[in-house]
């Protein structure tokens, strides 16, 4: 009898919860793997923090769905010379406390993020900037240390914070009670649990689509999908490809996918071990069936690439030929190099898809190598991968995105001599990528990157495998087109009529 009462009570609670869910249609609930670590947009660059605070703040520039850099707080910009960029600032923007956003706030935001005292992990994205000064209330002048073509792409990531408010409350308080000029303002932050935002009714771009937005921290992917299917969440991120069908088949949910700028690639150590021999590296390139990886492991949610780059990236070229899948040729090259049965250590961590790593291991073993997987936690993995070549393993799988949609953010850090990721050195290559990062001429830059990609094809210090797709699970009636840079702007979402 008692159990009967109890289950009736449980049923009643569940019923009430579902009724509440129907009524709260002006609330959008999004499940993320983690809550924001910080809400100060200048302090943290992890995906979950960015996803949330990006809706509280406006950025200086932004990208449209086609990937073009377009105005947000800046309405227009022009180069006075190779190192001086002048931006015009919108005159009709107010922060959430009603104060006006001016050039002062923009210059303050830039100066704040490049100030070493703030200890911003994003400093490396803005360290080419020397100064930011106010010309008049709607004009800001940025000076860079040298000509820096990726500047606009980096400024896309710069959030504008209110100078007066930050100075008044201090950095620590600003992190807990952030205030920006974006479409949503912070309602409540239950740290580690959820972040609740409410609509900023006086937003300059118009009324935001939902009254409240709740970002919940749900680390386990099966739980995120269960939340979506039961209506507890309206949108979930990081859906693995093998779960795509179950979301598509559910009448209440749908799968959203978009090709991103993120590239799955294989690092090959060119400075130590058996892969020091270029023939072994080329053999590895021939041994990998990229299409097979995409079909079997990504369920088709990806596309093989010819270089380490994809269409959303400036500098991407389809004029450089990729390696065809040719295991016989691979075996031959390995024999020729005398590397049959050579032991290769394949570094990885739980952050990378184990199935992809194991499939590559199998493909390489099939052509005569002896690949051993060595898995550690992400920090240990990075320490080895970025450290001394002799200890950096022979291979590693990586998923690269600089969120800047520019080849400079990909192949420069990966292969330029002296970079922490590069276990490779070629002066000719260095000269090309150096030149490409110091000219503003777009055609010239494209040509330089094409030549750089050709050298990478010959030397194979790394191999582009596939362009990855971002997969989201969404409620059937949520209208949203995800973008290649994996941003989640709630302003672009709405319920279908």
């Amino acid at each position, binding site marked *: 009898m008692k159990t009967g009462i109890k289950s009736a009570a*449980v049923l009643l*609670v569940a019923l009430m919860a579902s009724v509440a869910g129907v009524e709260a249609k002006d609330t959008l609930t999004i499940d993320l793997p983690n809550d924001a670590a910080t809400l100060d947009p200048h*302090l943290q660059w992890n995906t979950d923090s960015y996803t949330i605070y990006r809706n509280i703040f406006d950025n200086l520039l932004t990208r449209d769905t086609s990937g073009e850099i377009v105005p947000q707080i800046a309405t227009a910009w022009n180069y006075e010379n190779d190192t001086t960029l002048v931006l015009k600032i919108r005159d009709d923007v107010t922060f959430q406390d009603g104060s006006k956003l001016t050039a002062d706030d923009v210059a303050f935001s830039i100066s704040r993020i490049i100030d*070493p005292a703030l*200890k911003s992990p994003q400093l490396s994205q803005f360290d080419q900037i020397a100064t930011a000064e106010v010309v008049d209330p709607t004009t800001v002048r940025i000076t860079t240390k040298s000509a820096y073509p990726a500047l606009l792409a980096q400024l896309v990531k710069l959030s504008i914070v209110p100078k007066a408010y930050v100075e008044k409350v201090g950095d620590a308080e600003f992190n807990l009670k952030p205030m920006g000029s974006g479409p949503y303002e912070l309602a409540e932050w239950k740290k580690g649990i959820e972040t609740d935002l409410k609509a900023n009714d006086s937003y300059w771009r118009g009324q935001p689509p939902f009254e409240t937005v709740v970002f919940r921290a749900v680390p386990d992917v099966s739980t995120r999908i269960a*939340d979506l299917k039961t209506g507890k969440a309206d949108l979930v991120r990081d859906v693995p490809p093998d779960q795509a069908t179950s979301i598509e088949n559910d009448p209440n949910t749908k799968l959203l996918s978009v090709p991103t700028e993120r590239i799955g690639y294989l690092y090959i150590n060119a400075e130590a071990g058996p892969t020091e021999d270029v023939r072994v590296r080329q053999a590895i390139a021939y041994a990998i069936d990229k299409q097979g990886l995409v079909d079997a492991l990504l369920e088709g949610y990806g596309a093989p690439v010819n270089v380490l780059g994809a269409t959303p990236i400036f500098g991407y070229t389809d004029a450089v030929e990729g390696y065809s899948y040719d295991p016989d040729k691979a075996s031959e090259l390995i024999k020729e190099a005398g590397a049959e049965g050579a032991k290769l250590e394949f570094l990885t961590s739980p952050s990378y898809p184990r199935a992809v790593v194991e499939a590559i291991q199998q493909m390489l073993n099939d052509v005569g190598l002896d690949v051993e997987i060595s898995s*550690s936690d992400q920090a240990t993995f990075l320490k080895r991968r970025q450290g001394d070549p002799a200890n950096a393993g022979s291979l590693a799988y990586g998923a690269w995105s600089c969120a800047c949609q520019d080849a400079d953010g990909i192949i420069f*850090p990966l292969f330029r001599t002296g*970079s922490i990721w590069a276990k490779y050195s070629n002066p000719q290559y260095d000269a090309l990528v150096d030149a490409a990062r110091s000219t503003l001429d777009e055609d010239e830059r494209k040509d330089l990157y094409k030549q750089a990609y050709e050298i990478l094809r010959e030397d194979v210090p790394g191999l582009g495998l596939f362009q990855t797709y971002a997969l989201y699970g969404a409620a059937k009636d949520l209208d949203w087109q995800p973008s290649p840079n994996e941003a989640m702007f709630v302003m672009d979402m709405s319920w279908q009529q």
Partner: protein
Amino acid sequence: MLQYAAQRLVQAIIAIFGVLTIVFVVMHLSGDPTLLLVPQDASAAMIAELRHQLGFDRPISVQYLDYLNDLAHFDFGVSVVQRVPVIDIVASRLPYTIELAAGALVVAIGFGIPAGIIMATVRGGVIERVLTAIVVTGQSVPTFLSGILLIFIFGVTLRWLPTSGSGTFSALIMPSIALGALSMSTFARMTRIAILDELGKDYVRAGRARGLSMEKIVVRHVLRNASIPVITIAALEIGNLLAGAVIIETVFAWPGIGQLAIQSIQSRDFLVVQLIVLLISVVYVLTSVLADFIYVVVDPRIRLVR
């Protein structure tokens, strides 16, 4: 008694100190958070700069002494990831873990002990077989699997309970069952063994010979004597529940210190990890000391001397 208590206290402090030191060394040796904080296209110079600002370029011995010094002043530091005091982070999540552990203990004791008594006294029937099956299932199914199964059955298919989250009684039910299942089996088995053990003793036979009913003997004498090993288990199970909570909290998005520990280990948020470890080891040690003292209350024949 006092001497024994002092002895246990010293042992406890040494144990906690040892655990802290091991965790400190292991976490610091395998890499610092700087690499995880910066964007992946950061240059070596930038990483070195941030590492210096955060103080991770100092020798590990210096960092360790600093840490101990801060600890002695009850200063737990500021998280490098979240940039807020570590004590605030842990304090905000602790009530959730206590709530979950309490729920799990209710499940474990509420089902486990009666099941153990029934299994020991009512032998050879259908009831015993059903209970045995439940107990064996409870101890052999991994907690993450039982968690996911519960979500699938009661959350997604039947829609009786919320699939994740916290703050309501209904949200507490599934994680408590999933977390309590393992302890429930331990309680049932230990209770059963302890009672069977007692039932074979002379005083039971003597009681029977004096004409006392079996029920009277069990309730008056057997249960009391059998409770001693069960209490030990109860105390140790609290520590195990905290360890099990790490997995269950992740599965159910339950925002306790278990989930926080996982997140902080992944992001190398050293100070948070160290405070959680400190907390858990203190709980472990306190509960085992507590068990020793409860012995005396339950059975005054046991003396706390060595």
